[in-house]
């Protein structure tokens, strides 16, 4: 993952660094609350029959949005001790490449195209968990050939970003390849928080844009397929 953007002055670079370490305040988020459901019965069951518990992935917590459309299931890998989040929604663009943040943590997690995100060894026991999810506000499908600067219109966008567009320019002479993305949105002054470049099913590049501009250093021979905007 590479961070892009070139602050020209010292104050700007300082702000940029601070912004990376602070919790991102996404604008369009959905808050998820603890969904009181039956937790895993297996330890009880197996323990009752005198056997050792055999639950490789134990359910730690399930969160749901107020409209019950989002469901975030957090499982714990009992062998490694790591947590995994599974974001469920009927619409694919709501769970694919969606940012997940937790109330008491500055960390942000991005789901993959299956809606899964590795949380690692986070502590979910200390306080009532409240999470926010931020799906992309606009999705742009990137064409296969980027020979010169091109303007692209979103394949999906919410109301605010309907008229937005991207100007993408690939600098082939540079090593590594550099992709310049400039977001153009005439009406709204909303600030973009993240631009995510989806390279394939697994690899994604996240950038913190400054005034709608982001530069991505691309791995060799990899052409991005999609660019998502988050506000």
């Amino acid at each position, binding site marked *: 993952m590479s961070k892009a953007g070139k602050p020209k002055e010292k104050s700007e670079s300082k702000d940029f660094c601070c912004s990376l370490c602070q919790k991102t305040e996404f604008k369009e988020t959905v808050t998820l609350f603890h969904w009181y459901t*039956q937790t895993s*019965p297996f330890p009880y069951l197996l323990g009752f029959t005198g056997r050792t518990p*055999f639950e*490789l*992935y134990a359910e730690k917590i399930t969160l749901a949005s107020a409209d019950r459309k989002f*469901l975030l299931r957090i499982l714990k890998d009992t062998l490694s001790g790591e947590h995994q989040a599974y974001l*469920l929604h009927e619409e694919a663009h709501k769970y694919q490449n969606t940012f997940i943040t937790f109330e008491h943590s500055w960390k942000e997690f991005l789901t993959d195209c*299956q809606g899964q995100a590795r949380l690692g060894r986070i502590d979910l026991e200390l306080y009532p968990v409240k999470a926010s999810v931020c799906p992309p506000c606009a999705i742009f499908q990137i064409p296969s050939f980027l020979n010169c600067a091109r303007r692209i219109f979103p394949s999906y966008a919410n109301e605010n970003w309907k008229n937005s567009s991207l100007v993408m320019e690939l600098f082939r002479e540079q090593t590594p390849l550099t992709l310049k993305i400039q977001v153009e949105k005439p009406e709204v002054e909303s600030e973009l928080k993240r631009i995510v470049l989806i390279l394939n099913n697994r690899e994604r590049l996240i950038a913190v844009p400054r005034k709608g501009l982001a530069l991505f250093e691309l791995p060799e021979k990899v052409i991005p397929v999609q660019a998502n905007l988050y506000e």
Partner: protein
Amino acid sequence: MNNQNHSPSSISPLQMENLFNQTLTNISSALNDREKVCLIAEFLQSTRPLPANLTYSFHLQLAGLFLYLTANFQPDCCPPEELKIYLSASRYLQSRFVGQLEENLFRESQNNLYFYLALNHFYLGELEEGLTALLSRQEINNETSSPSKQEELEKLKKELTPILPEIRQNAQNNELIVKVLFDHLKKLAGLDQDLDLVMEKWKSFSGWRDDSIYCCLVESSGLLKSAERARIISLESRCRRSTTVESQNLVRFSNLPAFSKEEIYLSATDAMEAADFSINKHFRLTLPPCTLIFSFSEKNFRYSGESLGLPLALIALAQKLLSAESRYHLSFSREAAFTGKIDLTGEIKPIEAEGLGLKIKAAFYSGIKYLVIPASNLKEARSVLFNLLSRHPWRKLELIPARTLEDVLNDSRITLKKIDSYARYLLRKKKFTMRKWLLGFLAAGIVISSFILINRNPSYHFWKIRHPVVLEVHNGNLFARNQERQLLWVYRPSKPIVAESLQQKFEDLDGDGNPEILVSGNYKSDEKLSSEIFCFNNKGEVQWSFRPGKRIQTLTDEFSNHFIINRFEVAAFNQNSPEKKVLIIANHTTWYPSQITLLNSRGEILGEYWQAGRLGRDTLVIEDLDDDGWKEIILAGTNNDFQSACLLVLDPRAIIGCSPSSGNPEFQFKDLPPGKQEYYLLLPRTTINKVMGIRNYVTLVEISRQDRTIDVTTAEYSKEMDCGMKYSFDFNLNPLLSRPADSLIEKIKELVISGLVPPHALTELRSLKDRIRYWDGEALVNHPVRNKKLNF
């Protein structure tokens, strides 16, 4: 499996979550592992068409439990179709979570599932399918697919195809078919272990047992839930004689769920009554009440119903007969399962059609051969069985309809009746009484035998005075008697002893205060005599024995080993020591050598001296002649070498060698050293003695302690007549006088008058003492002298 309809295409995450939670709830209330597996498989199957991202976390969450359960459960009576669904689910999970879960989990799960798939196919007689499942299992274990195995299987199938119909036709049941098949399969390397495992499982459905019986029961899911599945389960029982005075049977179940206890106890009480009724009717027995303890072979088996009645009654019957130690013994086949209600008279009542179907299904998919059902249910049972057979035509399950308990007991396929012989029955039943009688007889026998034994053996006559004072010989045996002439013991020697030869002495040899008994005697023999001396304790036990003589040789002759004890004497030779020694004088039975032997108190030889002539019986005196504290042994007799009477004195410390020799090789002992006698005297022969051509010899040696003289009497003319000389010696063996007996003088006078002897024969008698010769160790001299060779 239940087919729950879900709409896979239109399901929200929340609905999915709810469905999942519902599944979890069902799993938590599932009866057993098989049901849990079934529920998970259902969930997986129904949600598989849904979008992958939606189901991912739910399937992942259930995968661990599913794999764990399928790797460990034992679905014995499971249709292969059901197992195939589980296998499919396991493979689906493997394809989806291959990187996230350990490979081993999938392998173990499929390993177990394939084994039970094979087993259940074999139960159903589907041999090819069973083999395929076993080979698949092997492939999983080897982690590689082996085309050669498949080829081998194909080849095997080709080989088996022509013979399978014949095997199927000849074999009575699927187990035998499988056995024959397995014999053919031994050549298929790698399957041996699996085949053994299959046969091991099948063994649980073979043999006869009197303490357990297979029941075909519908498992209850709970109070509100309908029954879904029947099981073949083993009901175990043991009977204990009732210790209470109550005249009714007691029933206990060691593992039963609380909600169905009352119903089952009622059913069991009826079954016990039916068993008693049947025992009375069938065996003509009235058995005492007892306590029967039942338990299912599985701890968590939940049952409620009445079809347990028949197996309960049967096992109660067998156990009651067993505990009452009756002649009759019942066992029930492990190839059969039983189900049916029973009334108090042993009549088997029908069961519900729904349960019957489930039971037949359970029996059908297990390894049992017979299912015993109420006769009234036969028609519907056949219908169910027919339906099942349409799917699995090779399964050989026989339905046995029974109207009463009698029908079951009389069917030799499912009931084994043994009747003990009366003798064995009595031995078993009356064993305590018989043991008592036997012990009584044994004790009486022991007492009588003891009386006889004691009476016959005087050694055990404890009431008698145990000190023998005399020994007698009767029929060659030695009889010891006490002072009251009571017989104390009898000793039977190897050969009979001549009564006349008996010599005995009672001496305390070992100084323990109890005198030992020394007895010598000659053995009767057709040939030459021999003798032996015994040392007994007062109980008649031989302490030691000694047989005199040996094969002694001169330079020209060899003497046979036939010596008889002439006399023996016991003495403490050293005045400073209380230890007593035994001196034995033995003469050769026919020839001249005599043996003088000194033994210690333990019968060990201390010294041995050989004399070339016989020694007399009354010519032994033991006396300390030189006052040195050691008693000398004074002996006399005749010397064949010198042809005259002789007198010798031996020191007990030096009893060795042989008497002096004249140099005549005929009398010169071979391999014997010169004798260490203290004195050796040759008494002169008289003229009459010479004229008559006989040897003179000493007949008597006496000692006078007061005068310190030794008086020696010889026989010069005849043994019968007192025609001898008398010599007197002091203790240094100096001759004091020699005097003829009056009868000798008279006889000589007669002979002189008749001219047979010269006149000096009479005059020489006074001077004979001067002609006594002494052996000085080297030669004979005419003056008194001690043996120079003796060092002390």
